[in-house]
C-alpha cells in the first residue's frame, strides 16, 4: 500500500501540497491568482515556439552534418550569397520574436498595473530573519493594533504534516477573491517576498515601499520563501499565506482586534 503510494507519487511526480515547493519538482505550482495563470500560459506559449525552433534547428544541423560529411562530400558547394534565403531568415525570426513579445509585454504591464482599488492593505516587513505583518486598515490611532511576527517553525519542532523549513508560527491570513495590496519593505537588508502560486516576487528594500497586488482565487495555504540573499538565515524565513473566505477573514480579524483594543 505504502509502496504503491510512493510509486504513484513518483509516477506523477507531484502530490499533496500543490501550493508548496516539493522534492524534484519540475513544473510550476498550481496557480492561485490570475497573474500566475498568466505566467503559466505565457510559459506554454513561448514553449510552443521554443520547441518548434529547437526541432527545426537540430534538423538543419543533423542534416548538414550528415550530407556534408568530409568522406561523403569532400567538396562542399561554394555558395556565398543568396538574397532570397537571407531575407527569409531575417524576416521570419523577427516575426517569431514579435509573437513572443506581444503576450509577454501584455502580461508584464498588467502585472504592475493597479487597476482597481484594493480592499485591504497588508504590509510585509522583512527583518533578519523573520517577517512582520501589519494589518493597519482597522487602526483608529497611530498605535498598531494588528501586527505580528512570523517566524519559521524550527527544524526539530514541526508537527506531523507540517512542511520542513516552510511552516511558520503566524501565517498571513488574507481573504480569498478579494483584491489585496501588499506593501513590501524591509527594516534592515534586502529581502524578497515571494509566493510562487500567487505569481508574486517582490523585493523588500529598506526605506522604500514596494507594492504588489494579488487576487487569490481559491482558499488554501500558499508557501513561499525569501528570495533575496539576506544573511545567515536567508533560508529560514519562509512565507505562508493562508487564504480564507471573506467571512472567516472578518471574524479572524475582529477576534484579533478586540482583545488588543480592549487592553489598550
Amino acid at each position, binding site marked *: 500500500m505504502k509502496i504503491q503510494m510512493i510509486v504513484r507519487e513518483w509516477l506523477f511526480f507531484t502530490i499533496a501540497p500543490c501550493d508548496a515547493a516539493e522534492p524534484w519538482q519540475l513544473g510550476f505550482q498550481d496557480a492561485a491568482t490570475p497573474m500566475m495563470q498568466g505566467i503559466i500560459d505565457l510559459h506554454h506559449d513561448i514553449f510552443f515556439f521554443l520547441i518548434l525552433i529547437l526541432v527545426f534547428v537540430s534538423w538543419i544541423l543533423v542534416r548538414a552534418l550528415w550530407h556534408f560529411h568530409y568522406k561523403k562530400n569532400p567538396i562542399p558547394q561554394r555558395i556565398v550569397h543568396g538574397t532570397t534565403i537571407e531575407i527569409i531568415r531575417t524576416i521570419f525570426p523577427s516575426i517569431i520574436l514579435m509573437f513572443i513579445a506581444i503576450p509577454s509585454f501584455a502580461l508584464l504591464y498588467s502585472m504592475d498595473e*493597479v487597476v*482597481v482599488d*484594493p480592499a*485591504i*492593505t497588508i504590509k510585509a516587513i522583512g527583518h533578519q530573519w523573520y517577517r512582520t505583518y501589519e494589518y*493597519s486598515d482597522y487602526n483608529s490611532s*497611530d498605535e498598531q493594533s494588528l501586527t505580528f511576527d512570523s517566524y519559521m517553525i524550527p527544524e526539530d519542532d514541526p508537527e506531523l504534516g507540517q512542511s520542513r523549513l516552510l511552516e511558520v508560527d503566524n501565517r498571513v491570513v488574507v481573504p480569498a477573491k478579494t483584491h489585496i495590496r501588499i506593501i513590501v519593505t524591509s527594516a534592515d537588508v534586502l529581502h524578497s517576498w515571494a509566493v510562487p502560486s500567487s505569481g508574486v516576487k517582490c523585493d523588500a528594500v529598506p526605506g522604500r*515601499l514596494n507594492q504588489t497586488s494579488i487576487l487569490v482565487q481559491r482558499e488554501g495555504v500558499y508557501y513561499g520563501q525569501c528570495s533575496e540573499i539576506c544573511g545567515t538565515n536567508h533560508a529560514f524565513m519562509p512565507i505562508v499565506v493562508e487564504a480564507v473566505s471573506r*467571512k472567516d477573514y472578518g471574524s479572524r480579524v475582529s477576534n484579533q482586534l478586540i482583545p488588543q483594543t480592549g487592553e489598550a
Partner: protein
Amino acid sequence: MAAAPSLSEQYSLPKDEKPVESKPAEEAVVETTTEVVSEKTEEAPAAAVEESNEAPAPAVESSEAPVVESSESPVVESSEAPVDDAQTSNEDAAPAAEESSEAPEQEESGSEEAEEIKLETAPADFRFPTTNQTRHCFTRYIEYHRCTAAKGEDAPECDKFAKFYRSLCPGEWIDRWNEQRENGTFPGPL
C-alpha cells in the same frame, strides 16, 4: 457538466461573487437583502437537482436552464441580491417558480461581516501608479497633517487621510515621523 471546464472557466470568479473593490457596492447589498423576495430566482439544471437534494453552490449560475416543473425539486434561489448584475442576467422567465424558504445562508454573511470589519483601505492613487509607493505613504502623511493644521485637530474630513497613511506606512516610519514632528525636524512641508 459533461466537458471539463477550461482553465479560464476554472479560474474565473463566479458572476455574483464579485471581487471586493470598494465600499459602496457592499453597502448597497446590505440594503437590498431585505427585499430579496422579489429578486430573481435561478434554477439549477434539472438533472443536478434530482440527483443531489442539497442546494448546489451559489457559484453555479445557470440562468439559461429551463424552468423546472417538478414541484418537489428544491428551487434554489440566490438570496444575494446582485445589485448591478440584476440587469445583465434577467432573462430568467420564471415568475412561476416557487421559492424555497431555506435560502442558503452563507452568502449573506459576507456582507454582514463586512459591516463588522470594513474591508476598506487606501484607494489606488493615480499620482503613484508604479510599484514604488514610498511617496504615496509620505504624501498621505503630509496631507493629513496639513489638513489638521488647516481645519483643526480631529476635523472629521481629515480622518480619511489618517486612514490612508496608516494603511500605507509601516508603523515604524509613522513613529519616527511623529517623533520628528515633535522635535521640529520633520523633513516635509507641513
